[in-house]
């Protein structure tokens, strides 16, 4: 039950993009088409879950015992960068078809602040390993959900007649604002 609540809270109520403003760059950058949005969502979910497990273990077995918590930012970003590179290399060898689908998005993920954000949040909230994994995976799914919905809207928006000054970024941001308002309707559920 606890995990189900956590899942709903992370996907709908505290949606990482629309309520906490993490991962805005890919949210605005790769949301022109639904198919690319799905690919990005898949890659992000995979990397966030994996990165959270690894950073959690490093925090508990290296940073905490040696009392070097101040190295957290440096350690985590290095782990994430290395991990993304490794996933890319392994995917290329093991599953070329998956690599074809996710490959282009992987290098972009290192600078996606959701990954580092979730890794730090999990430590701040003092979750255990199982809770961390559920939290990471559901947060990532929330990111994917927002991204895919937004891409769907933007596909339609491309056909609309928009005033010149509003084209591009402004209208995308306002659309995102309205989407965030819709997600506010979920607040109070959990």
């Amino acid at each position, binding site marked *: 039950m606890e995990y189900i609540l956590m899942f709903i809270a992370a996907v709908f109520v505290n949606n990482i993009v629309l309520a906490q403003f993490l991962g805005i760059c890919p949210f605005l950058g790769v949301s022109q088409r639904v198919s690319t949005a799905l690919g990005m969502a898949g890659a992000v979910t995979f990397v966030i879950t994996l990165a959270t497990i690894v950073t959690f273990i490093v925090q508990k077995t290296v940073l905490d015992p040696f009392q070097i918590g101040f190295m957290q930012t440096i350690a985590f970003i290095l782990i994430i960068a290395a991990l993304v590179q490794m996933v890319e290399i392994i995917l290329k060898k093991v599953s070329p078809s998956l690599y074809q689908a996710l490959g282009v998005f992987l290098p972009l993920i290192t600078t996606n602040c959701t990954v580092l954000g979730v890794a730090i949040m999990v430590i701040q909230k003092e979750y255990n390993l199982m809770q961390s994994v559920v939290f990471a995976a559901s947060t990532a799914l929330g990111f994917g959900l927002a991204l895919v919905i937004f891409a769907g809207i933007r596909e339609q928006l491309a056909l609309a007649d928009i005033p010149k000054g509003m084209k591009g970024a402004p209208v995308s941001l306002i659309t995102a604002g309205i989407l965030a308002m819709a*997600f506010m309707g979920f607040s109070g559920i959990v």
Partner: protein
Amino acid sequence: MSNLSTFTNGLFKENPIFVLLLGMCPTLGVTTSAVNGAGMGLATCFVLILSNLAISWVTNIIPDKIRIPGYIVIIAAFVTIVDMCMAAYLPGLHAALGIYIPLIVVNCIVLGRAEAFASKNKALPSMLDGLGMGLGFTLSLTLLGAVREFLGSGKVFSIPVYSEDYGMLIFVLAPGAFLALGYLIAVVNRFKKA
């Protein structure tokens, strides 16, 4: 490019928020008030100047293939310094900015300037570029924070302008961030073309 134009470049012509659209996460996340926006902007500005300076010094020593991880470690070191100084001297602001301080590491502006400018230029222009970009970022964040604070809670820099009861609460909540920034960029676009 002269030093002066390097400096003003980031302020207006290539303003990181309104023109380049980089570093959106802290822009939207912390600008519930003008003071928070300014605090975040100055913290990023500090990191930008010092990381640009450090990177322009070491860029010839770092092998080309591992330059990005190298830059990230340098940036992360300065972010850690800012994080700890802020926690010690400005605990209130530190609590308000929260997770966005460590996330300066993954702010695209910092790495972007390191790669695009500091790695190719000498120390002084790199610092000026960092200062210009950082101040441009700070100005944009403060402006966005002031607009949201004014519309949402009737204050500017915590000074009451009109009664809070008439404020549109939506502007200090999440959707207001997107809406306010969207319309501000539209206004900037309008002036740029005129």
